[in-house]
């Protein structure tokens, strides 16, 4: 469904991604793991058009995305849950969700989408009129995911959903990721929390200093000695 071929990107004179190729099939959940500064967030930003591609191709169901500005990429069916959730802290939960359905195609279905997201995450319904900045960390992540789902994307990008959350909340958040998978969404998830993420994805790539170093099924990576030593501390 989503295919990256030879993608390079960076900031100014600093190159963050070198010749990255990966693909995500329909209905699949794919993880990208790697240490801090490996280029994981850059990868997400490149896919969603927040950062221009320097070289290579990005295709979604055969349609070229490279060079498209961010506000058009979402219309193609890619929703991005940014790092640190990035809710609009002064808006209510419902207003945040409505922002997720800003694009015209989603705007027509705002009511049903809201109902659907509330069904998926009943907690959000309870808090619909609460100011988003006052939610707990886990609820914020829930709201951020809900916001991304409002556009009914073909693929959901999640950037470090567990970052900055307490261990117990991290469990909940991965629970949310499972729920979304069960709903049949295609997911590309970037995580530092390697052990946890390998439990929820089908396949994963290991990204190190801007290059794909390893790839394989979740099982393979879990049993890979290098991954175990470097990232799971076993």
């Amino acid at each position, binding site marked *: 469904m989503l295919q990256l071929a030879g993608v390079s990107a960076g900031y100014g004179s600093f190159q963050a991604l070198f010749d990255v190729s990966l693909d995500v099939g329909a209905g699949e959940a794919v993880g990208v793991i790697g240490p801090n500064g490996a280029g994981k967030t850059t990868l997400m930003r490149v896919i*969603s*058009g*927040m950062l221009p591609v320097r070289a290579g191709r990005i295709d979604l169901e055969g349609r070229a995305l490279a060079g498209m*500005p*961010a*506000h*058009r*990429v*979402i*219309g193609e069916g890619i*929703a*991005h849950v*940014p790092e640190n959730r*990035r809710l*609009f*802290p*002064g*808006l209510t939960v419902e*207003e945040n969700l*409505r*922002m*997720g359905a*800003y*694009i015209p195609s*989603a*705007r027509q279905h705002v009511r049903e989408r809201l109902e659907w997201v509330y069904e998926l995450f009943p907690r959000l319904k309870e808090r619909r009129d609460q100011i988003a900045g006052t939610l707990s960390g886990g609820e914020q992540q829930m709201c951020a995911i809900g*916001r991304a789902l409002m*556009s009914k994307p073909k693929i959901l990008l999640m950037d470090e959903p567990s970052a900055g959350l307490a261990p117990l909340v991290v469990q909940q958040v991965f629970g949310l990721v499972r729920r979304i998978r069960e709903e049949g969404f295609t997911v590309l998830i970037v995580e530092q929390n390697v052990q946890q993420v390998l439990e929820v994805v089908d396949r994963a790539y290991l990204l190190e200093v801007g290059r794909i170093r390893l790839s394989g099924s979740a099982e393979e990576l879990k049993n890979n000695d290098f991954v175990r030593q470097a990232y799971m501390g076993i």
Partner: protein
Amino acid sequence: MDIYLVEAIINGILLGGVLALLALGLNLIFGVVDVVWIAYAEMVMVGMYVIYWLHAYYGWPLPLACLVAVIGVGLLGILVHLLIIQPILGSAPINQLLATGGLLFFLQSFATLLFGTDFRNIGLRMPIIEIGDIFISFSRLIAFCVALAGAVILYFFLSRTHIGTAIRAISQDREIMGLMGVDERKVYVITSAVGGSLAGLAACLLVLQYDVHPFIGLSFGPITFMICVLGGLGNMIGGFVAAFLMSQIISVGGYYFSIELSYVFAFLFFIVLMFIRPQGILAK
């Protein structure tokens, strides 16, 4: 109680409504585009001239002339954004402010060039309302009511529409607007149009009470800036409260001393408040 003081206080409240409208417009633009239109009061002046010419000179009905002014200044807002602000969005914010300073210069002197320095009045005589011994000018009362109505409409626009929500969201997290499918540039243009229209609306209300001349903007600009800083730039509620505070000082100060001195007092008050509450009066 001093009946004239009561009158001054009431007039202060009525003036506050119009100033609040101006502060709302400036804060809206600042919150979204992150730029201060130094020439905002001069755009009001443009609106006043539009109404003057259409109504007093060409004999259009006043409401129609006002409508044209609101739309016209709204369009001017779009032009200001596209021609002056957009080309330098990437450079230091202070440059954008200075560029609109150039616009202030331009509008003021261009108006002088076109119309001379004459004071022009639309020649509308409105009744004076008498309540007990207190006299209230009807035109000020109308101005106040319309200003409040404008603020309420703005409130509903910002809270009930998609674009309104986006306008509030953009000031909270500019960077991720693209992820929501929002084209920032479009939001900027729409905000500039709304901000311009608010200046146009203020022009409709001010033209009822004041003569128009090329330097009329100087009577409202500086005080509006003080109000915005006092309320916290971009903070609409703060600006709203500050408008009524400052208008009281001006109105009551003007009653006891002179209108010029009342501005000086307002400024002193402003400096003192800056010592006490630097982030604006509503800061926690």
